[in-house]
């Protein structure tokens, strides 16, 4: 078999599947329950502000995160972005230290692989992301912990969920390069700024940090 045989074999795909692909459409709206952050109605554009602080090795300069797509506002340590689909969202940004491009990171996908409530009554989820950087292309799991249950509210007849402040924490481990460096991004705070707005404070920890254990 060669790639040409493989290419030709795609002619066997059923017509209904081919037809389905011809319809242009946006990603479907996400499931609030799964994402569990904040809520919106169908036409809502969600705007978030992410404040970044960092603690990574001996680096002391501010960590700058540039969001590649959908940038509304960007400044040192702070960025604003919007998305209308958190369930299947993509977050792209470059990390910059001391004005040197450090790495490019892309988070995409959002599959919840496992959900459970632990002995302390804390809801936990294991989610699958695809994360790429210039060094490698790999998949990694993110462990997200929801501390509090979402508050269910009704807006214009649409049932949505809104999380209170300090509602969630998730830890994302990124392994890249042969050096096997590890960067953990931890959401420590989710602050509701208004309907459809939120703020996430992130911290990065180097390997072996207690929070990354």
């Amino acid at each position, binding site marked *: 078999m*060669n790639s040409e045989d493989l290419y030709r074999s795609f002619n066997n795909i059923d017509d209904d599947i081919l037809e389905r692909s011809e319809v242009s459409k946006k990603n479907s709206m996400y499931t609030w329950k799964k994402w569990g952050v904040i809520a919106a109605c169908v036409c809502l554009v969600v705007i978030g502000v992410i404040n970044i602080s960092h603690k990574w090795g001996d680096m002391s300069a501010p960590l700058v995160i540039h969001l590649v*797509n959908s940038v509304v506002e960007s400044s040192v340590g702070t960025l604003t972005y919007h998305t209308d689909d958190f369930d299947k969202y993509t977050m792209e940004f470059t990390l910059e230290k001391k004005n040197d491009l450090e790495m490019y990171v892309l988070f995409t996908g959002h599959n919840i692989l496992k959900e459970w409530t632990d002995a302390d009554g804390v809801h936990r989820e294991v989610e699958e992301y695809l994360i790429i950087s210039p060094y490698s*292309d790999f998949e990694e799991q993110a462990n997200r912990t929801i501390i509090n249950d979402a508050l269910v509210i009704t807006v214009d007849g649409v049932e949505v969920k809104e999380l209170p402040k300090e509602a969630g924490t998730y830890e994302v481990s990124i392994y890249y390069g042969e050096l096997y460096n590890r960067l953990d991004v931890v959401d420590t705070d989710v602050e509701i700024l208004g309907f459809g707005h939120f703020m996430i404070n992130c911290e990065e920890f180097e390997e072996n940090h207690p929070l990354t254990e």
Partner: protein
Amino acid sequence: MEDYQIIELYFQRNADAIKETDSKYGSYCFTIANNILHNKEDSEECVNDTWFHAWNVMPPQRPTRLRLFLAKITRNLSFNRFQVQSAKKRGGGEIHLVLDELEECIAHESDTENEYMAKELGECIRLFVRTLPERDGNIFIRRYFFTEPISVIANRYQMSANNVMVILSRTRKKLKAHLEKEGLYE
């Protein structure tokens, strides 16, 4: 004109069938051919060959989806032409990128003259695409059936190009695993 009316013209052996097909699907088939051949004149010839081929097979064949029926003919004819041209000179275009990407899914090149193997592979791909989530399947098809550039796919589904590339990469890995499982990874 509706598809069933065009098909009826073929069955009546009415030459207007080709005119109506060209009017309705000429541009659509040209895009498919041009994605593969990357050449206006060659693509136009392939589209004309498509009408000729359709004329020869209808009747007896009566397609349920005329557009996709024509798409498959155009794709086949264009790829045949590409292979002939490729033997002479390797040019540019999306098709080379697509074939390079598909290289990832096979262990090494071998001759698949065996018709049975080709049929098995086709059935394997057909079933594999059905197992994919809708979004991933659609993107995979736009790339490897319709040979669409990444930017076009991203625009179609209103996603970033990077996101499309990541989904394609992940799906190729799944395909490789699927081919291995089915004993077709050689």
